[in-house]
């Protein structure tokens, strides 16, 4: 069976797919080889996210423990590495409850719909040279489209539970997701403009110097926006334990709860991978042809550490503060970044529309000055809305009376 993937196939540009296809296609019919290669890719993808989620859960709990001067889970396995699997086993064996008044179908689909974006997002991320599982030429757009699915899933989970806390959580979650999508998209526009392509492979290739230096403002806004979209702690109003019981997954238990948790933590891993690809020059590094995967993993770990660090540091924002942060702070910053990047690209690019490394350094200098200027400007402009109450005194009938006292 001589199966050949023609260049007009969308998967032709995915070397990993072609390798599997050629291998299986040697002794199987072409359509079966096509399906099997796809299944292999999906298997790799799903396991990468789920194992990544497990590792992230463990490292987050260990690191949070150390941040709190505790030890963290250390019972099962060396340093407690098998703790996530113990949790998973417990959740799998728990009773899978569905509320009597729940919308059963939506209730069932919601956890899967929540996990799907986390897995799908990773499909376009190149782990090392030529290993993006689907090398789309609109990778950035694809990521944005797929992450928007999360808001639907959250709304489904909250509404189908028929629980007021779940509904509150879902409403908050969707509001946060929609608000923070705007600055995030605008930041990505800056990156895409500098890279000149939406394919993540090309974005990595364009990073002669990491885009965190070229686009520091975009990195900062993107990090904040993504951590809000992932419901991480400074922005986790959607599942605020102290306000809503557990937010949109209040009614979930057993395997469905495990899926939601996996989606949340796997989402952090995939988001870190995307940030690494967009801003930290992906898999490139010394000896990248052989050690690209190592550099990629190290950078992902560094970004994940940033998420954990922020979680250990900041208390939860109020809902209005959260919205104000998105619309009054991140959105203007991303707009400024977009404008500055557009001007820089317009004036610095040569006749063929490409930017040299020198141009990138110039942009880095300008953008760093811009970042510090903007943050200082906004920081000095923001004032506390609520001032502490001072006792005011007034004179009434010749005697001083403190306001508020019953006379």
């Amino acid at each position: 069976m001589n199966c050949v993937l023609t260049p007009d196939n969308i998967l032709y540009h995915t070397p990993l797919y072609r390798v599997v296809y050629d291998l299986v296609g040697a002794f199987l019919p072409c359509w079966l080889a096509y399906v099997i290669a796809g299944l292999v890719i999906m298997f790799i993808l799903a396991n990468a996210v789920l194992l990544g989620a497990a590792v992230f859960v463990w490292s987050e709990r260990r690191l949070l423990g150390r941040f709190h001067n505790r030890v963290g889970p250390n019972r099962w396995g060396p340093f407690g590495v098998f703790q996530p699997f113990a949790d998973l086993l417990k959740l799998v064996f728990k009773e899978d409850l569905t509320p009597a008044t729940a919308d059963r179908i939506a209730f069932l689909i919601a956890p899967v719909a929540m996990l799907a974006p986390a897995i799908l997002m990773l499909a376009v991320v190149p782990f090392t040279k030529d290993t993006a599982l689907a090398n789309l030429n609109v990778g950035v757009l694809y990521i944005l489209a797929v992450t928007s699915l999360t808001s639907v899933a959250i709304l489904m989970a909250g509404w189908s539970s028929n629980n007021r806390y779940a509904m509150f959580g879902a409403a908050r979650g969707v509001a946060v997701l929609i608000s923070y999508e705007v600055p995030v998209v605008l930041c990505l526009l800056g990156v895409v403009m500098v890279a000149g392509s939406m394919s993540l492979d090309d974005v990595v290739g364009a990073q002669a110097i990491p885009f965190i230096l070229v686009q520091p403002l975009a990195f900062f806004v993107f990090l904040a926006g993504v951590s809000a979209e992932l419901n991480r702690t400074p922005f986790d109003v959607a599942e605020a334990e102290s306000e809503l019981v557990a937010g949109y997954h209040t009614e979930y238990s057993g395997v469905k709860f495990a899926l939601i948790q996996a989606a949340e933590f796997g989402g952090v891993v995939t988001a870190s991978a995307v940030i690494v690809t967009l801003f930290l020059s992906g898999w490139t590094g010394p000896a990248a042809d052989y050690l690209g995967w190592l550099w990629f993993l190290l950078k992902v770990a560094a970004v994940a550490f940033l998420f954990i660090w922020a979680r250990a540091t900041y208390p939860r924002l109020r809902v209005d503060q959260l919205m104000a942060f998105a619309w009054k702070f991140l959105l203007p910053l991303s707009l400024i970044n977009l404008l500055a990047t557009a001007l820089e690209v317009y004036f610095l690019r040569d006749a063929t529309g490409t930017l040299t490394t020198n141009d990138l350094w110039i942009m880095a200098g300008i953008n760093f000055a811009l970042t510090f200027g903007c943050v200082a400007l906004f920081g000095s402009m923001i004032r506390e809305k609520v001032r502490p109450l001072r006792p005011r005194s007034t004179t009434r009938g010749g005697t001083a009376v403190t306001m508020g006292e019953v006379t």
Partner: protein
Amino acid sequence: MYGMGMAKGLLVTLKNLAKRPFTVQYPEDRAVQHPRFRGEEFVWYEERCTGCASCAKYCPLGIIKIVTDPSQTAPDQGDKYRLDVFDIELARCMFCGLCVEACPYDALFMGSGFEQGRYSRKEMVIGIDQLRQSEKHPSTFFRPQLESARYNPHDGRPLDWREVGRESWRWHQREKAGMRLTPRLDAEDGGSLQSETQDDSGQDTAADPVENSR
């Protein structure tokens, strides 16, 4: 400038990340406890107890039950009562230590343990047999003689009834405050304490916890 606090907060948490964990991995390691720790497993020396039931009277919760048997003894000659029942209901004990403070003969001490968890309240009663048989690691709570001897119940050896009384504390010996043991008790065991109680100068060191705990 607004927002500087966020950077400061990050630094604070980073500092805490570098610190050693404060917690102790309990079953393997134990936190160091003060010798005065008021633990469970009350330490009771039957040889010193006269059955006066002061501990039961002073217990604010009334959870100490003492039944004494005056038969076959001569209380009017200073003989002590025999105890039939000495129950302490640990489930309701609040470890105030008033029973220990009330004991005039240094017969009852707070314990040093904290691992007497049981599955039912009925099991959480210390009976007289358990009090007799348990290893004597008395807490130094309200027992200055143990404290000045630098006795540590957590790593020290079990103490005998001769070593824990106030009469073995030299300062008290000079005050002649340790003369409470009945002659009969002394006669029974015959040995070291007799000389100690009769000797005002406090030269005897046979029952000195300082010496023994070293």
